[in-house]
């Protein structure tokens, strides 16, 4: 597409690579709550 050519910005993600980026960065979940979710095994 001449005006909007495709671009590869990232390789395929490692498993769970972006947990922090998405949960904390995009969804705004606090560090404390994330630790709790990790402890419970939900993440």
């Amino acid at each position, binding site marked *: 597409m*001449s005006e909007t050519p495709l671009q590869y910005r990232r390789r395929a993600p490692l498993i769970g690579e972006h947990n922090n980026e998405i949960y904390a960065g995009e969804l705004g979940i606090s560090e404390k709550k994330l630790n709790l979710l990790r402890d419970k095994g939900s993440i």
Partner: protein
Amino acid sequence: MKKQVFEGIKIADFSWAVVGPLCSRYLAEHGATVVKIECHKRLDLLRQASPFANNTPTPDSSMFYGKINPDKYCVTIDLQHPDGKKLAWKLIEWSDIVTESFSPGTMKKWGLDYEEVRKIRPDIIYLSTNMQGSGGPHSAYSGLGYNAVNFSGFTEISGWPDRMPAAPHGAYTDLVCPRFAALGILAALDYRRRTGKGQWIEQSQFESSLHFLSAPLMDYQVNGEIVARNGNRLPGAAPHGAFPCKGDDNWIVISVLNNEQWQNFCQAIDNPALSQQKEYATPGDRKINEDELDKLVTAWTLKHTAEAAETIMQRAGVPAQKIFKPQDVYHDRQLKERNYFIPLKHPVMGEQKFEMQSCYILSKTPRRIKRPSPCLGEHNEYVFKELLGMTDEEIAQHIIDGTITTEITGGMKVTL
């Protein structure tokens, strides 16, 4: 009648054969106005391709062409002639989208390529689809899907290990590529709506087809492995293949993917002892002894009709399916219930059933076929007069000077 999603979108379709016309077909089926530009001097390949209605080859009786072109208008222009090009420009100025599927350079030769068109219509969406793209050492090769299946790699991996490579059915890449082209057009329409800008969509049919061969390509890239022809066999699964049934040339596919299905299979053929045999205990064992296993399966399937074998297997929880022949598909109850085949009266072919192209139904604006495929030049008057606003005198002059073509000069050769 409800409006459809592409109602009001206008396409000047210079494409021929399969890929371009199948792409514009999607848009036609959802309401776009598609004018297909053809010529009596060099017939669209598909007008010369079987099957012909009533086994009578004429430019208007190919159902291969018919399947791909319903709901389109057809005009006939001599693009070699300067006045013919003027007509083409009128259509381009009228349109939102231009599509073409010639070898690279053909539209440029006629001065109708994207660079020329964008000067007059910067908002045009212009699709070029061809064998290997519009740049690079092999871009100038012309060809058909029948060639592309070979250099894409489909032929090499189709068939049996001890036999010669077998091409997949038909010009397979032709049937893959239009879906990507239509998707590109949708993206470009969205971009134009947001920005007012058009763009050139340049499709390599080679690249589009490779999507379907990623696993063999990756196997080579990652491990240097070459995927071999393997018939109907699948790694890790056995029995897996087509097995002959009672009668003449009737077949069933049986696909045992795990141990549970293997147990079910042994029950289904009423041979519980088989499930205890150590040669066939695990998928690995079954793969090692697959030739012997296939003989056992065949001995059972030969005693049953394909329908009966299918019922027995499916009831027992074994993936199995009778192999359908064209008549089975044509009379299939499921397709009938969903109105897949639409009967329409064609002026030359009589009543024919036209197939839906979209394999999806949009709830508010369902797919629709309103008109059969056009006869050659059928809509010259409608398009030039009603859509482009030309006068009768102007149209008559173009017919007299031959730039609107009306007579077949090169003859009709049945090519496919």
